[in-house]
């Protein structure tokens, strides 16, 4: 089975609650870092609040969940890792990070345009006893290694085991749902196989409202966004490419 797993995130639905961020951290044994800041935190799923930079009644805001984009073409982080601790899984299109091989040189973090990679600046520490609440399906990392979203690969593994136990060759799509997708209260995150033209996610990714962030860089990210609002779609490319007029769409009473 060759799949290209990807996402379409509906920005008209995201309310910025942060459930996906917490669910992701719980599923992937990410330690809580109460002394960290927004620049040193560990948030493989990160929701960013973006405004149209106006005040008063003309102000608009949107919440943009950012994960690893699982870039397909000349994946920047894969090509720069000196010891092949990152690779693209051909069967699924998932960009895999192996923390056990990571040297912690952080070159991949420099390479990522989406800032989707996070470094363990300190050893993870949980209060006494809390390790009993860790998820055994995911290895716990140590300090000095980089980590990022891997589309809840542990759940793919579990889905494959379940299919194998039932004697099937293909997994059931309903069995492989990443934590953030499951957690979203407005079902804003859609996950599926972009290679399957019947998959609703694949179809959504081709709609006119869909866009990818910094698509012009040419890395072919597999996380799409969609919005009916033009000012939101304008956020896709860099500042200089943005059209300032579109962001003044009014939603006046």
């Amino acid at each position: 089975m060759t799949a290209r797993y990807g996402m379409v995130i509906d920005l008209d639905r995201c309310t910025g609650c942060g459930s996906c961020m917490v669910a992701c951290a719980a599923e992937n044994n990410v330690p809580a870092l109460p002394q960290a800041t927004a620049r040193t935190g560990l948030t493989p799923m990160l929701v960013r609040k973006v405004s149209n930079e106006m005040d008063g009644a003309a102000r608009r805001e949107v919440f943009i969940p950012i994960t690893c984009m699982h870039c397909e073409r000349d994946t920047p982080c894969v090509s720069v890792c000196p010891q092949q601790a990152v690779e693209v899984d051909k069967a699924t299109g998932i960009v895999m990070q192996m923390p056990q091989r990571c040297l912690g040189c952080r070159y991949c973090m420099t390479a990522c345009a989406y800032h989707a990679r996070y470094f363990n600046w300190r050893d993870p520490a949980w209060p006494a006893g809390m390790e009993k609440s860790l998820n055994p399906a995911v290895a716990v990392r140590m300090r000095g290694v980089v980590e990022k979203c891997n589309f809840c690969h542990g759940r793919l593994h579990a889905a494959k085991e379940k299919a194998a136990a039932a004697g099937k060759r293909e997994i059931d799509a309903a069995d492989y749902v990443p934590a953030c997708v499951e957690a979203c209260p407005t079902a804003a995150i859609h996950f599926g196989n972009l290679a399957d033209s019947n998959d609703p996610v694949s179809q959504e990714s081709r709609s006119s409202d869909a866009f990818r962030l910094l698509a012009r860089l040419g890395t072919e990210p597999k996380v799409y966004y969609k919005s009916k609002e033009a000012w939101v779609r304008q956020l896709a490319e860099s500042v200089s490419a943005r059209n300032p007029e579109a962001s003044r769409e009014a939603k006046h009473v």
Partner: protein
Amino acid sequence: MKVTRRDLLVWSAGAAAGLMVTPVPWKVLDDVSIWSQNWPWIPQPPRGPVEVKQSSCTLCPNGCGLRVRMVGGWPVGVAGVASHPVSRGALCPLGFGAHQLNWHPQRLRAVRHRGNTSTWGEAHAAFAKACSEGPVVVIDGWPGRAASQVLENFAKSRRGEYRVVLSPETRALLPYERWSGAPATSLGYDLENAQTIVSFGAPLLDGWGAPGRFTRLWAERAAGMTDPQLRLIQIDATLSRTAARAWRWAPVRAGAEAALAAGVARVLLEEHLVASRGPMPHTTSAEAADQTGLTADAIRDLARTIVARGPVVALANDDNPAIAALNVVLGAVGTRGGVVRRSKTAKSYVAADAEIRSARAVLINSSVPWDFVPRTDAEVFRFAAWDGGSSKADWLLPAPGFLEELTDVPAAPAMATETYAVAQPLAKAPHEVRSAAQFLAGIDASLPTAEKIIRARCQDLFHGRAGTLCAQDQTPVSKVASAQKLEEQLWNGAVWVGEPFRAESFRCELKEWPTVAASVPSQNWLSSWSAPILPPLASKVFQESDLRERPEGRIA
């Protein structure tokens, strides 16, 4: 024998080559890799058989359905239950990290008396003494449970008082209680049938009610649509999360919600846009415009937009009577899509915020939010699973934490139908903890246990032959084979849903527009959260990102 340089070179080269063939360098390299991958101080997850069980979250009165993954008897992950009629598979951000709460460093593990460690025996003796010396006031943060009944029975039996801290959603329904006699806890909003919802600051998409209830509804009927089936009009001074996604956002000055409600009601009545004939507000159009910061034309347009597509209902974030009066004008009281009465049996309660005079002791249940501090000089016995610090309570009593005790889940605040669920305990409680009901049973042995009450309630539901049992599929109660079966289903996570409301069961009499009292300021979305601490992983949204501001007074 002279060792020449040649010898030296030959031997060195030979040794180097020879070493490569021995296991020594490879073993060393291999060991180094293993050392560098597995340091002994890195915690390891638990190992053991994996089970998935269902229960309900008990950290706020919404009682969202939980699917809990357990390994070796410990919860290692939580998710929502898609078939749950209230939460519909969603949880709040705090819920996803709740399984780590029981190990929070601030977990209360011993009785504390004025800062010093004490024992249950001493607490018991002190409380017994207090009970014999005077009336006791019992405060409950989550009324309607079996445990609540135990608390209430105890208070009544001692000629004491039973008071309740209402969730903001229920508190917003208090004006209707005043005008109709129907208890606020028996009322709800029929959002599922409304086509226009006007929210005066209520954070419908961000922490109002059970997270899944409105967000799922909105996602299905409104998200991303230019002409949505469900029109959400948000009245907010700043661009809140709900306002940012709403169909329309009306920015009014902070505190001017009542003025806007009055202005809108005036337009509706003057232009005969509604069937109702009154009551007419005292505020004039000009005054409304002045106070809200909107023009009179804007208010007029808003009023017309509100009634353009009915049924319409207005929601307040506090017990502001002006918004309730607007609902009366809109004809949204006791009608489909409006404020409805879901229960005949729910009670009205005395609010806990009033000053407590002439009480010998106050007992505060662990369901009461930590920031609630009773205004009293009496001896305070406070149950809590976590110590939030700077408590004024005389006694801090360690209560069961997350999923550590059997409890039932009455209807979530503001639901349009009655629901009932049972939250079975899934985590082992530390031996030092005791619930308030257990504690009181030690004083008064005649009190029933919570479990007994829950089983009795299950029996009543079965015998009532009404409603539906929601599990993987929906089964009318009339088709359930036995009370035992019903009980079993509820224990395993099914939810009982009552019959839809009846329109004629609820009427409000309002002769005059209410005078605008000083309204309670908008609640923080965490206000129903009873624990004084946040789940550790909440740091992801509050600390490790710029997504949310840290809530005041809450320690992560």
